[in-house]
């Protein structure tokens, strides 16, 4: 079962990437990455800023050239002919590239025309999408006057105007308010449910965990792991986790707990929070008693289910704080 409760995806790659490499002067953006995306799959591409997510999308969609490697999209060799599959794909870039001086409706109609859609059909399709995205009332307003969330939704609508079989979504919920982010996630799930193959890049780990069938972790231009969400979480299901809120706790206290309770892995998980892990259930009473002897009160203790965040930390060696800071910096979009 997948993160979005979809039936098992048949193993038919619609995107096949082998040894994709890209350098910008002295910087290695992609160091020979290989992966495949299966037909109808919601594939997550997860990594911190600068990991190579957007570069990968740009190369796959024809906005950038690879230095090495091969790309096959829906059986068409796009390595040297990036235009070959552009009619099959829809792209929602990380920043909107619609026309600020056109209305929402005109933007959609123009995007449809770029794919050779006739006037009657593109008008109908534009109206449908405006309705789906709740933008009907704003259809006649110029795009420049839209809010961030509305801009994001219209950009997604523009990516869908020609009914693509593959949709590239680059950070779709970054910088939008919580309500819009939730709506966008629901739309992504609906599209996935309708059989659209979705390539999603995000640095929101929870978002990827909730939406994706399979996930690739990319760090420093290298893919460190690709697997289904269920498989990624499997090893962690044998672990038991506990998060305790203990005012005044610090690394010294964490070390003391680890020393007194062998088999427990203890680390600070934030201000006043201890993160405990063990291979067997963690007894709470001795811990509370131990802390009470040191005049530390346990305000809260809750069991932790294994999350993709834990997998990310284990696999990449990176702390998720970096991702969280990026999330805070970009504003909104939380789950």
């Amino acid at each position, binding site marked *: 079962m997948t993160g979005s409760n979809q039936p098992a995806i048949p193993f038919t790659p619609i995107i096949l990437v082998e040894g994709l490499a890209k350098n*910008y002067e002295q910087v290695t953006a992609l160091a020979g990455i290989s992966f495949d995306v299966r037909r109808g799959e919601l594939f997550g591409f997860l990594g911190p800023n600068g990991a190579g997510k957007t570069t990968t999308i740009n190369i796959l*969609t*024809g*906005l*950038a*050239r690879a230095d090495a490697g091969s790309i096959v999209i829906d059986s068409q060799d796009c390595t040297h002919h990036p*235009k070959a599959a*552009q*009619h099959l794909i829809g*792209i929602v*870039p990380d*920043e*909107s*590239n*619609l*026309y*600020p*001086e*056109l209305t929402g409706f005109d933007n959609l109609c*123009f*995007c449809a*025309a*770029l*794919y*050779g*859609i*006739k006037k009657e059909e593109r008008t109908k399709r534009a109206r449908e999408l405006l309705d789906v995205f709740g933008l009907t009332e704003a259809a006649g307003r110029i795009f420049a006057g839209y809010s961030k969330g509305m801009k994001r939704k219209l950009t997604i609508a*523009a990516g869908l105007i020609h009914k693509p079989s593959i949709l590239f979504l680059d950070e779709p919920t970054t910088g939008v308010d919580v309500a819009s982010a939730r709506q966008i996630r629901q739309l992504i799930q609906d599209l996935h449910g309708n059989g659209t193959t979705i390539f999603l890049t995000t640095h929101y780990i929870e978002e990827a965990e909730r939406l994706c069938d399979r996930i690739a972790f990319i760090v420093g231009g290298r893919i460190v792991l690709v697997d289904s969400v269920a498989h990624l979480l499997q090893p962690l299901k044998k672990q038991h986790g506990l998060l305790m809120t203990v005012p005044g706790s610090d690394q010294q206290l964490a070390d003391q707990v680890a020393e007194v309770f062998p088999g427990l892995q203890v680390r600070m998980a934030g201000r006043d929070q201890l993160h405990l892990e063990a291979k067997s259930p963690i007894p709470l009473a001795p811990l509370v008693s131990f802390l009470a002897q040191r005049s530390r009160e346990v305000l809260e203790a809750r069991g932790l289910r294994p999350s993709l965040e834990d997998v990310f930390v284990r696999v990449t060696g990176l702390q998720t704080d970096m991702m969280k800071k990026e999330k805070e910096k970009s504003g909104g979009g939380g789950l």
Partner: protein
Amino acid sequence: MKYWIAFWNILLKDMRTYYLKPPNISWGLIFPISWAGMFFIRSGSSLESVLSILPGVMAVSILFGTTSMLAVTVTFEKKNRSFDRLLLSPIPLWLLMLAKTSGAILFGILNAFVPVVMAAFLTDLSAVDWSLLVPTVILIALASTFLGLFIAVSVSEVFEAQTFSNFFRFPMIFLCGLFIPVASLPIYLQTLSYLLPLTYGVDLLHGAIRGANALAFPLSFGLISLFCTALFLVSLRNVYRRWIL
């Protein structure tokens, strides 16, 4: 894939968004009128001299009208990333660039005929060879537009495009036979003059309006067509190399 739908809609959008805006319409009218007035006053001659200044005014109107617009329709769109939307669509790059330049070509052609309409009220145009004049105007519009495209895709900022345009436009005005006949220029400037597409365009216009061409028509047509092709191909190469990184 019906490319013509994409082509037509790109052209239509550019016309509505850029060319048919009041500032551009007024630019398209006022600029040729000002040039015509300025040349006429400068010449201090009778109304008959209108025919001698008409080719120059037409050429300059086309040159400024077309090269100025490309900085906006191409460089500005690239800067604000909406040009990426076009690059991501399944249209061949050459057709896309042709669609983006068609508006400027039409704008240039219309600009060229503003002084012609004015001249029609001032002098007798019955001697004008229209079958030569119309293709000449189209070729000059093509060459000027593709020169503007070459400039627009060679820079990143709109102001750079405007500055770079002047680097080409003003020397061209002085060297193309507009103020001074090419034959009376020093030999090294003549060489430079024959490297400029507008020289052949102005000569063709002189031929079409007054029968006073210095070069054979086929030679001028051939060379200006060569300039158009070369400028367009180099621009495509620049888009591919600079914008599809």
